[in-house]
């Protein structure tokens, strides 16, 4: 048990102890208090257990009554198409197409875009019933903001295929979209007989360029898309689609209920010119992923050709699928499994605040400052130690609960929004970083306030309470968004795995997992608070007598 201790370089007499020595000293202080180590381990365990509880508490049933035999669990997993990037997509539309070689173009004039929608039932009934199987709802005339019609070059007619498209939309003017997640604006204004829109797509290998024009002679380029994996014979043609009609109403209790239904868009095309098409092939009309048991509300479709003009009617959407009220089937996100982080975080915040306030309880601070008189350095060393420990705790907890939780959730028949590996890593590592920075914030609050009860309460209230107020919609949504921008809670944005796509008309609410700030921006807000608190703490530490 006896060991000869040779002084490290940092501890050599003659010079002041270096930062490394102070960090080592603080690390020894931390690991020799059993309660703190236990607290950190408890944080990991609680985070994992709560996450798995939340994952395991879902009971999905499907089928029955109209949809065949009742099923539960994994048998209920919806067959959701995934786009080229691996993301879940909705890919339902009507497509009038013919094969296109690796070099060619398609040009059209669009003269009209009209639509109607089918509000289903009253509030509370989410119109998940496929069109046709339920009593026919009455139609209301009107376009959806993101009803769209135009031209498309697609890798194939399979749902989730790679594509690029130029289109007119209900309220967002001309757009170029490709591979579901990309969206570029073109000419503004809506289309009509008096102000038609000319659209063009040219293909050169994998590279597709989109142009628009208001007169058919003056063209401007809207954007280019490199569509990977486009086969030498792709499908080019006209499409129309219209996303679900969605109305969300908030109730008094802070919850919300939505009513939704299918919608249809009909577009008039003229001057269809196709170059690079295989000779002797005509147009084929096809509803893409519009089967009756589709997971997205659709309402028929078709096309008419009269000479050079086409009328195409379609229903559905060509867009990424998102969780929350906009989703038409039960979904979970990978970060749903991280709900336990709040419990773990509270334990971490308690330990972190005490890591400093305990110094004041019995006058230990005077010994500490006698050993390392540079007060800023002591705080920095403590921040390094608690930050590192908290990072590991958060990383381990998230690293356990996310992969296992995803499997459990899927096994129960709940669809988990797929994300790229990079995103999953960002969510897991980001959780570690979030816990670490929150711990440093709590430490700094502890150093500034010196009293454990007040420091712990402040840390929890500034980090957790805003989340609760916003998520449980205790304050109105607008106020909730500001809470999630301006308080340390903003840091939780780092856990958001599905981005809020602007090309979808769905409510991106906090409790559906959408934060008003981008992941790293939100995290930066939390870091800003931690830095501010550290600054105030150093100032007070230097100014006050120990």
């Amino acid at each position: 048990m006896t060991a000869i201790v040779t002084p490290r370089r940092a501890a050599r007499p003659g010079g002041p102890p270096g930062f490394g020595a102070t960090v080592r000293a603080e690390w020894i202080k931390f690991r020799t208090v059993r309660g703190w180590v236990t607290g950190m381990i408890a944080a990991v365990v609680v985070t994992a257990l709560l996450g798995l509880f939340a994952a395991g508490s879902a009971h999905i049933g499907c089928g029955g009554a109209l949809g065949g035999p009742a099923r539960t669990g994994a048998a209920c997993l919806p067959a959701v198409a995934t786009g080229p990037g691996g993301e879940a997509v909705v890919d339902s539309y009507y497509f009038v197409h013919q094969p296109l070689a690796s070099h060619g173009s398609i040009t059209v004039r669009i003269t009209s875009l009209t639509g109607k929608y089918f509000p289903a039932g009253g509030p509370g009934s989410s119109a998940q019933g496929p069109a046709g199987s339920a009593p026919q709802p009455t139609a209301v005339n009107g376009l959806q903001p993101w009803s769209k019609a135009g031209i498309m070059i697609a890798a194939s007619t399979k749902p989730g295929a790679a594509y690029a498209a130029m289109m007119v939309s209900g309220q967002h003017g001309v757009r170029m979209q490709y591979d579901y997640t990309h969206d570029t604006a073109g000419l503004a204004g809506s289309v009509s007989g008096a102000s038609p829109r000319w659209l063009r797509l040219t293909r050169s290998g994998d590279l597709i360029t989109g142009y628009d024009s208001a007169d058919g002679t003056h063209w401007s380029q809207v954007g280019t898309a490199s569509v990977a994996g486009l086969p030498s014979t792709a499908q080019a043609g006209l499409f129309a689609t219209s996303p679900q009609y969605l109305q969300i109403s908030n109730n008094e209790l802070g919850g919300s209920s939505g009513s939704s239904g299918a919608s249809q868009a009909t577009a008039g095309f003229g001057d269809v010119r196709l170059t690079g098409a295989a000779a002797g092939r005509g147009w084929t009309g096809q509803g893409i992923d519009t089967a009756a048991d589709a997971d997205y509300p659709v309402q028929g479709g078709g096309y008419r050709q009269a000479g050079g003009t086409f009328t195409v009617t379609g229903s559905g959407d060509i867009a990424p699928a998102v969780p929350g009220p906009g989703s038409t089937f039960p979904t979970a996100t990978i970060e749903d499994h991280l709900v336990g982080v709040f419990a773990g975080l509270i334990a971490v915040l308690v330990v972190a605040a005490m890591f400093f306030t305990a110094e004041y309880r019995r006058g230990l601070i005077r010994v500490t400052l006698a050993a390392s008189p540079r007060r800023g350095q002591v705080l920095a060393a403590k921040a390094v130690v608690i930050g590192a420990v908290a990072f590991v705790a958060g990383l381990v907890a998230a690293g356990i609960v996310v992969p296992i939780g995803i499997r459990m959730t899927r096994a129960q028949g709940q669809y988990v929004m797929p994300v790229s590996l990079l995103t999953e890593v960002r969510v897991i590592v980001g959780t570690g970083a979030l816990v670490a920075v929150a711990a440093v914030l709590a430490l700094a609050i502890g150093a500034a306030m010196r009293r454990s009860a007040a420091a712990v309460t402040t840390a929890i209230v500034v980090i957790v309470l805003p989340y609760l107020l916003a998520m449980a919609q205790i304050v109105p949504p607008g106020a909730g968004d500001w809470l999630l921008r301006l308080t340390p809670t903003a840091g939780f944005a780092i856990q958001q795995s599905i981005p809020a796509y602007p090309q979808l008309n769905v409510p991106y609410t906090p409790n559906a997992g959408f934060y008003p700030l981008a992941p790293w921006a939100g995290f930066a807000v939390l870091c800003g608070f931690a830095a501010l608190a550290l600054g105030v703490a150093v100032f007070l530490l230097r100014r006050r007598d120990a």
Partner: protein
Amino acid sequence: MSRMLRAEWTKLRTTAGPAWLLVAAVAATVALSVLAVAATSCPAGSGCPVDTTKLSLTGVQLGQALVAILAVLVISGEYSTGMIRITFTALPRRLGVLAAKGVLVTGLVLAAGTLAVLGGLLAGRLILPGHGFSVAHGFAALSLAHGPTLRAAAGSVLYLALIGLLSLGVAAMVRDSAVAIGVILALLYLFPIVATVTSDPKWQRHLEQIGPMTAGLAIQATTGLRSLPISPWAGLGVLGAWAAGALLAGGLLLRLRDA
């Protein structure tokens, strides 16, 4: 008992902490209520499903944290200095000491809570009509003469007092103030957070029925009572059960453990 009460009362009024915490609890409650009320508006021509009474009492969510600190420090403060041994030397009946502390915390919180709740309601009464919640829109000005509003207001005051007792019990159990506060805020805040991500509505409802805060704050609802996870008074009863359980466990440990 009266000696214990007088001793504890002397302790409370001879340090500045408790008084400041009570002032802070009132200020925080009113401030958050004012913010919540000011951030809410009802644009003309739209139906606003807002429970104006509940909105005006939003501040209780924050005020309860300060009430919890006060109650925790009444016990943990003595443990951290070691003064608890002097207390138990002067008053060897430990349960009596806990009871005396409970009586005083309850009394102080009831007084401060009344001010805080009235402040919140006053903010709602003054600000909300200017934000579209006017009589013309079908929103009556907030008034305690309205039965459900009176119930929500009185219930919120009782809610704060029960939070104080719950905190006292937890502090008697864990003794350390930081840990006690952590446990209490976790108890309060975690149930609703876990409930929001629980996908099964049945579990979600159960969580809201047993969570001390989610159940207790059902007392604030004046509209949509039918869709509440638990009825107002039953919800307050759930919180009462939590407080009673914590006090019981705390008292038992206080008696069994060496001081």
